[in-house]
């Protein structure tokens, strides 16, 4: 660690991992409710558990992005953070606001929460992923502004690298598009149209800039490849991301009351969205193959390569699977969507945050570059447990989705939704088993922070040319 203020990242990373555990516990509850319909009913109905699961996901990823920014921005800018105190303060504001919101979901009926928080004054609640009370949303904006001020001023007054600039553009975009969550007209078509400006333009737009810049940073550090080369790749990747991804929003405008021409615009542009993900995979493997040294943190390199591969599979391949309008006509809003949502979120955003934590945590805990061998071996076990079980979750949901699509939408005698769900129960049981393995992988991951802490670091001979 070269700058003292980078230390604030540690708080953010610890909170991220803690909330990740909560997210997965609720995932396993949801999975059980899929097969034992009245499990925990009426105490924790499915919709409540789902809100907790998805909102914890978003919040912990945001903690992860902020931690990553606080760690890498000073190092890239070659100066301390403008205000480490503000970063700590905002950490607590965000954590407490987040915790209160989750407790609100669990302890108060949702309509009561809407009443208590004055949803009638500015109704924004009750839409997927944007369930937070309006006051929480305002809190998120305040935290984001303080964060952007801190990061932005540090970047602009320090050395300006491409990694820092791309990260900053991504983070500003994240904040700007979130503002559309405050627009909620009575007209459902318009509501849905701009809802996607938050959801799609996040995950298939500005978040990919954040992903790209973190990946580039970790690759510069672990491979020693010339920065010029890595930065050129980064520009090309994010150029392709926005060129395809902005108009690609159209793949959500097929069946919600929007003009028919979106079936063409959406299909053509979103069909090209896998390109930047594919380039990211080529990029990561290329850089590691051309490495000028062997970094002692092997786990971090494994996470970086894993991110590139899994993001391509989850977003690129599973996205392409259902993105063409004639296919989407049948798969829209089925388990196929859930399969894709899981692998894409895990492969791209969960894994990039874990990559950054893996790279930075040893230094944040006072080591020179890497954890002990024992700790790294355990961490790599957790990598495989989580990643392989996520592959299986995706495959089982895809199986369920294909059958659902056929039985409910495609066959000559379409069956009712609830009848079909019972017929494909076996797939949901298998998903649940894979989910439990995922949870075990996560516990192994946490254990890796506590083993071999007294043992020496891994040291490798330099192969510097």
């Amino acid at each position, binding site marked *: 660690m070269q700058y003292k203020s980078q230390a604030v990242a540690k708080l953010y990373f610890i909170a991220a991992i803690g909330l990740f555990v909560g997210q997965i516990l609720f995932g396993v509850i949801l999975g059980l*409710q899929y097969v034992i319909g*009245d499990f925990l009913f009426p105490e924790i*109905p499915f919709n409540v558990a789902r809100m907790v699961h998805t909102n914890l996901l978003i919040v912990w990823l945001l903690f992860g992005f902020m931690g990553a920014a606080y760690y890498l921005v000073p190092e890239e800018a070659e100066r301390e953070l403008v205000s480490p105190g503000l970063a700590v303060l905002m950490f607590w504001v965000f954590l407490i606001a987040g915790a209160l919101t989750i407790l609100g979901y669990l302890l108060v009926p949702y309509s009561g929460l809407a009443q208590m928080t004055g949803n009638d004054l500015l109704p924004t609640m*009750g839409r997927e992923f944007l369930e937070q009370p309006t006051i929480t949303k305002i809190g998120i904006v305040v935290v984001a502004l303080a964060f952007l001020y801190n990061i932005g001023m540090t970047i602009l007054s320090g050395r300006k690298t491409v990694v820092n600039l791309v990260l900053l553009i991504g983070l500003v975009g994240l904040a700007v598009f979130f503002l559309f969550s405050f627009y909620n007209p009575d007209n*459902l078509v318009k509501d849905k149209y701009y809802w996607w400006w938050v959801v799609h333009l996040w995950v298939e737009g500005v978040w990919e800039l954040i992903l790209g810049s973190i990946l580039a940073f970790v690759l510069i550090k672990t491979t020693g490849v010339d920065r010029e080369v890595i930065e050129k790749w980064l520009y090309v990747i994010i150029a392709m991301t*926005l060129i395809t991804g*902005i108009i690609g929003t159209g793949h959500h405008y097929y*069946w919600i009351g929007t003009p028919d021409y979106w079936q063409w615009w959406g299909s053509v542009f979103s069909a090209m969205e896998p390109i930047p993900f594919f380039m990211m995979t080529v990029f990561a493997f290329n850089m590691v193959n051309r490495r000028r040294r062997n970094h002692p943190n092997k786990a971090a390199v494994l996470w970086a390569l894993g991110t590139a591969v899994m993001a391509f599979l989850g977003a690129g391949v599973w996205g392409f699977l259902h993105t063409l309008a004639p296919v989407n006509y049948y798969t829209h809003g089925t388990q196929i969507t859930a399969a894709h949502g899981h692998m894409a979120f895990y492969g791209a955003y969960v894994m990039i945050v874990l990559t950054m934590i893996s790279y930075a945590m040893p230094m944040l805990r006072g080591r020179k570059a890497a954890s002990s061998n024992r700790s790294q071996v355990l961490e790599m076990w957790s990598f495989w447990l989580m990643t392989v079980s996520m592959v299986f979750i995706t495959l089982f949901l895809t199986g369920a989705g294909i059958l659902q699509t056929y039985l409910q939408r495609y066959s000559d005698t379409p069956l009712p*939704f609830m009848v079909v769900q019972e017929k494909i129960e076996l797939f949901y049981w298998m998903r649940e088993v894979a989910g439990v393995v995922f949870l075990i992988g996560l516990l192994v991951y946490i254990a890796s922070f506590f083993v071999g802490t007294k043992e020496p670091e891994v040291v490798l001979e330099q192969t510097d040319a």
Partner: protein
Amino acid sequence: MSQAFTKAMARNIFYGGSVFFFLLFLALTFDSEATFPERDNRQNITESVAMGKRLWEENNCIGCHTLLGEGAYFAPELGNAYKRLGGREGIMAFIMSRPKDGVPGRRSMPQFNFTQEELEALADFLKYVSEINTADWPPNIQG
């Protein structure tokens, strides 16, 4: 990547491409807004429909159901529930009849204890949604 292709060129493609396609997206958005009135059934957004949408949101129906294919995949699609359940009466009767403690072993929907006015608002909302022009989606009545 080849040497002839410089970092400055890559940067220019990024800025130029992003701005161009964002502007194109805005243009398509303006055009879409202009065609919405023909498709989005806005003439039928009454006070009751607006109230129904608020109730839909404040009870988080989207946390179990899809609406026009978006939402959760735990319970039936409701964009065409008006047609599947045979009109407003069918919808109101279904929502009203949910047992407080759920149906043993079966995926259950909460009993929300709506007033008659609220039930009618929800039914009006789902009727309005069912008349949006969705390019013939869903493929059949099962949603």
